[in-house]
């Protein structure tokens, strides 16, 4: 059960709770599409503490709380606030938790949200800690897959791109590996999935690695594409080569299963051509929208709304 619990890592949520979140997210999605108002968080306050900018995640959290009828307080510019005056994160969190019912945070250091959950008197939702965990992103990714295939089992999932630094793929891999999925990791050798993630897997035998997307195009149900950042390459020619062989254009997409989907945590740059956006298999914008419903469900379950 998620009541009053902090969610720092996807490991904090059981498979049963994952499906409970999905069902609630689905029901909120339906209600909102019918224009129904939801008031379960009436009188409740969420504090958003973003020590590192992230427009998307923050807007999504704040929108979720507002849609539930709750209020939001936030620090608009973390650089000008307590953190830059030398206050510890522990103290900032103690203070913020006394003003709110739940905290959503992002921080540039790994483990920051775990620490915050230990000093907070209210539940903490991790909206990303350095290159560490980002569990609400994982939940919305899983929800998008579940919504399309009505299951998280018997699927072929391929993660493509920067698997070393892309934190969304780290927690997604751990989560998917808890279900009966076959996973292929496709990346340039220099951007492979790190061992400290592979060593956490319950079923490593269901995961294979590769460097070429072509062999998997016809058999994959879910493509999870991540951004390959130019800054990761010393030589820009290497970047050009890599991006060329890991990008999705109409020709790549034409080789995919009719029922497959393409996901991306956004923002995308060159990995997916805008020419693919109108293809029914392009799911990345639906995925981003789902973030609000999933965060609504999570907040609602944690704070015990009816």
């Amino acid at each position: 059960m998620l009541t009053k619990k902090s969610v720092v890592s996807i490991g904090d949520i059981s498979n049963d709770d994952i499906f409970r979140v999905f069902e609630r997210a689905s029901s909120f999605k339906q209600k909102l599409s019918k224009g129904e108002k939801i008031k379960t968080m009436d009188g409740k306050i969420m504090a958003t503490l973003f020590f590192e900018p992230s427009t998307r995640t923050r807007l999504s959290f704040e929108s979720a709380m507002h849609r539930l009828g709750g209020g939001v307080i936030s620090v608009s510019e973390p650089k000008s606030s307590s953190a830059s005056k030398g206050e510890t994160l522990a103290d900032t969190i103690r203070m913020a938790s006394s003003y709110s019912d739940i905290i959503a945070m992002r921080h540039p250091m790994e483990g920051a949200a775990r620490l915050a959950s230990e000093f907070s008197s209210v539940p903490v939702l991790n909206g990303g800690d350095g290159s560490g965990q980002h569990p609400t992103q994982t939940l919305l990714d899983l929800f998008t897959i579940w919504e399309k295939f009505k299951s998280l089992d018997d699927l072929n999932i391929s993660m493509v791109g920067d698997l070393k630094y892309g934190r969304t793929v780290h927690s997604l891999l751990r989560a998917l590996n808890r279900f009966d999925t076959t996973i292929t990791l496709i990346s340039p050798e220099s951007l492979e999935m790190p061992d400290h993630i592979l060593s956490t897997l319950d079923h490593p035998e269901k995961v294979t690695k590769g460097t070429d997307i072509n062999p998997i195009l016809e058999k994959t149900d879910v493509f999870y594409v991540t951004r390959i950042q130019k800054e990761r390459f010393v030589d820009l020619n290497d970047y050009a080569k890599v991006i060329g062989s890991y990008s999705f254009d109409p020709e790549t997409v034409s080789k995919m299963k009719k029922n497959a989907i393409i996901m991306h945590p956004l923002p995308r740059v060159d990995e997916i051509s805008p020419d693919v956006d109108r293809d029914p298999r392009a799911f990345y914008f639906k995925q981003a929208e789902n973030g609000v419903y999933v965060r609504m469900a999570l907040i609602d379950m944690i704070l015990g709304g009816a």
Partner: protein
Amino acid sequence: MTEEKTLKISKIEDGIVIDHIKAGSAMEVLSVLKITSRSGFTVSMLMNVRSSNGSLKDIVKIEKKILKKKELDLISMVSPDATINIVEKFAITEKFRVSLPENVEDLIKCQNQNCITNAKEPVKSVFKREKTGSRNNYRCQYCERTMSLEEIRNSIIK
């Protein structure tokens, strides 16, 4: 013959004998115990002695020393096969092998520089042991990265 010699050199009245230290690691054991020439302890050290099974080992004997749990944990991470003999009035009163701890608190520094435990925050580092095959890794309970025993050794011996 080696055994005899060992005993001759360093029969101690009260204290500890750390035996079966990985050959070449005696200095590291002293280092994690923070024992230096200025600590005031009477220490004898044998390096690269032949043990009864034919392999090489180091031995450290420290008079009037009592080991704390934390110190035992550190020794286990530097030399997992070491045995501890507790000596009272020239007799061994207790003998046991060190064992790798399940949880390591406030003893090692996370090697991830960007881990929150390395910032100025009021927290202790906490690691949990994970065994995969014959390998032991310790996972930081904050950043969730792992450290191998080799990496831990390098970080605690300075």
